[in-house]
């Protein structure tokens, strides 16, 4: 069954014999221009239905809301004033001083010493933009709890739902520590096409009742093409490639930014020792994860499963004992 936590090669754990490099994303939010091309390209490629009630969602330019069954890419917008930027720089510096074991290549770490790096013209305002996606975790909460085997580990180490097998039990929805996967209801806003004299009709919503999430364009990856969102991203804020290269690029980029004094930069998901064993999609964020709606310390529930089974076994035994006592106790 492979180990339940800690660094490992997920594909190997899933008994893929021939060696495929693990694929993944690196999303550098410092150069994201918030154009949402990734959202559209993803929906267009996977033919996901339009979801959302066509109303302003009261969150700056983000009217998509969050990842979901029909939205596998979501661009977040956060407007922040100068004071918040300073706090972010402070928390970034704190991360550095924690003495991370592997803080980037040695020479970058030397350059990252605070003091010589005067931040450039600190803006009195900034607008964070970041494209969120499924993390394709090394230890995927959704994959572990899926009872039907619909969710499976591909040869490239990504996690994909087989929509012809999933019976929509929904356990994976609660199992994901990042709240990515969701069961598709057909509750999309009534498409505008039910109007008189309208040619054509909105195509029926596919895969209703089935759990859906980003497949890292498994169909494209099988024919070694770049996923739709990575190919269409105008500033390559979304980079795609072998997971190890992605992590290296991420480390170089964060070291380079720290050297420029922009210490608010930090990586998210690049640490193999974290609660999900590191993620397939690595992010470079410019503030605390929760500002983007990401969990600060996610942990795959399966890591504690053995202990839970033991507790449950104990409880079951307790119950048996209670019943026995009940019968043996009074013969009356």
């Amino acid at each position, binding site marked *: 069954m492979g180990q339940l936590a800690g660094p490992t090669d997920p594909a190997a754990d899933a008994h893929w014999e021939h060696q495929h490099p693990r694929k993944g994303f690196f999303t550098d939010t410092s150069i994201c221009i918030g154009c949402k091309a990734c959202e559209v390209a993803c929906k267009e490629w996977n033919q996901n239905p339009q979801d959302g*009630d066509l*109303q302003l969602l*009261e*969150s700056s330019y983000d009217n998509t809301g969050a990842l979901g069954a029909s939205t596998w890419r979501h661009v977040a917008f956060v407007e922040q004033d100068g004071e918040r930027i300073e706090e972010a720089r402070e928390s970034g510096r704190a991360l550095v001083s*924690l003495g*991370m*074991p*592997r*803080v980037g290549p040695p020479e970058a770490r030397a350059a990252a010493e605070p003091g010589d790096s005067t931040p450039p013209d600190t803006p009195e305002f900034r607008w964070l933009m970041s494209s969120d996606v499924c993390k394709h975790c090394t230890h995927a*909460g959704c994959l*572990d*709890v*899926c*009872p*039907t085997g619909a969710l499976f580990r591909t040869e490239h180490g990504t996690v994909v739902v087989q929509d012809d*097998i*999933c*019976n*929509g*039990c*929904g*356990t994976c*929805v*609660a*199992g*994901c520590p*990042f*709240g*990515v996967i969701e*069961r598709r209801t057909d509750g999309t806003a009534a498409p505008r096409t039910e109007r008189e004299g309208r040619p054509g009709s909105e195509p029926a919503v596919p895969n209703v009742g089935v759990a859906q999430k980003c497949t890292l364009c498994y169909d494209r990856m099988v024919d070694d093409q770049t996923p739709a969102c990575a190919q269409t991203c105008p500033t390559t804020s979304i980079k795609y490639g072998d997971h190890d290269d992605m992590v290296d690029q991420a480390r170089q980029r*964060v070291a380079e930014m720290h050297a420029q004094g922009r210490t608010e930069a*930090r*990586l998210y998901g690049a*640490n193999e*020792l*974290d*609660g999900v064993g590191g993620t397939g999609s690595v992010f470079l964020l410019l503030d*605390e*994860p*929760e500002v983007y*709606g990401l*969990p*600060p*310390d*996610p942990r795959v*529930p399966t890591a504690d*499963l053995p*202990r*839970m089974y033991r*507790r*449950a076994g*104990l*409880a*079951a035994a307790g*119950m048996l004992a209670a*019943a026995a006592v*009940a*019968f043996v*106790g*009074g013969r009356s």
Partner: protein
Amino acid sequence: MSLSEFDSYRPPEPPRRRRRDGARRRGTGPGGGGDGAREMPMVPEPEFTSYYGRPVVKPAPWGHEVAAYLFLGGVAGGSALLALGGQLTGRDALRRNARLGSVTALALGGAALVKDLGRPERFLHMLRTFKPTSPMSMGTWILSAFGAGMGITVAAEADRMTGSRLPLGPLRPVLRAVEGPAGVEAAVFAGPLAAYTAVLLADTATPTWNEAREDLAFVFVSSASLASAGLAMITTPVDETGPARRLAVLGVVGDLVATRVMEHRMDPVAAEPLHEGKPGAMLAWSERLAVAGGLGTLLGGRHRAVAAVSGAALLAASALTRFGVLEAGLRSAEDPRYTIEPQKNRLAARRAAGITDDSITTAG
């Protein structure tokens, strides 16, 4: 407050959660809707940021059917034990009623489960894999094994009740022979059936359920016991329900103790939903009913009427526990605060303890 008199044209705004702009805001409870014109009561700002108050994790898409299954599963499990007890100690009425009770609960629970599936017609896909990392997969196999055993015993009971008129022919002796071991086999799986549902809830990222992973099993097991005992007290004459009454009392005690321990051990923030709003009320009532049922059994257990009433109270208590825990979990997933703050506390605690290399956020 928009003062324009043309507001009457405003189309009925969907009840939307009233959120102030910007990242720093407090987690408002869900029902703060209204047409956004009312100004929200100003509550001091705890140190916590989220993405416009949107959930971080997603609540499981489970409705009342799943809560009903949790309750019925518990009853089925408990009744199977009582049935085995009755079988071994010659209490025929208890055995028969317990077995029938168990299989009806099982059938209803199973139907509820299948109905809750996104694609009910594919419920057999559950049997495609045997996957220890998936509590639901384990649960499916436990349920099947338990169902098989219980099915055989109930077949025997039905044959007996219909005076052997069923066209069994040569099978009858086989049935008689295998009935005993089937009862035992079912009972063996009774415990896991009652307990696995706790693991099913705990092994998720839903804050309240996950935080309760240490002791939820004990709560569910006790709740199962008192419920099945309650059922037995209703269905079986008083003279045979001695053990059931004792089991009921044990169950009540276990339930109260386990709930206290669980809430004590949980992170206070993650435990909040258990005390607030609808789930809070349900759990509070469940406790009162459990105590009432327990006392009723202890004091007047001998009189059929009182036993029946306290049995019903116990059943209600168990149901309320299950619905309450499920609702609390869903509520805790909808509000980001219950996910973010416990995790921040956990992270800070680990850092304080000197473990600094296992955070998902790194600077290198």
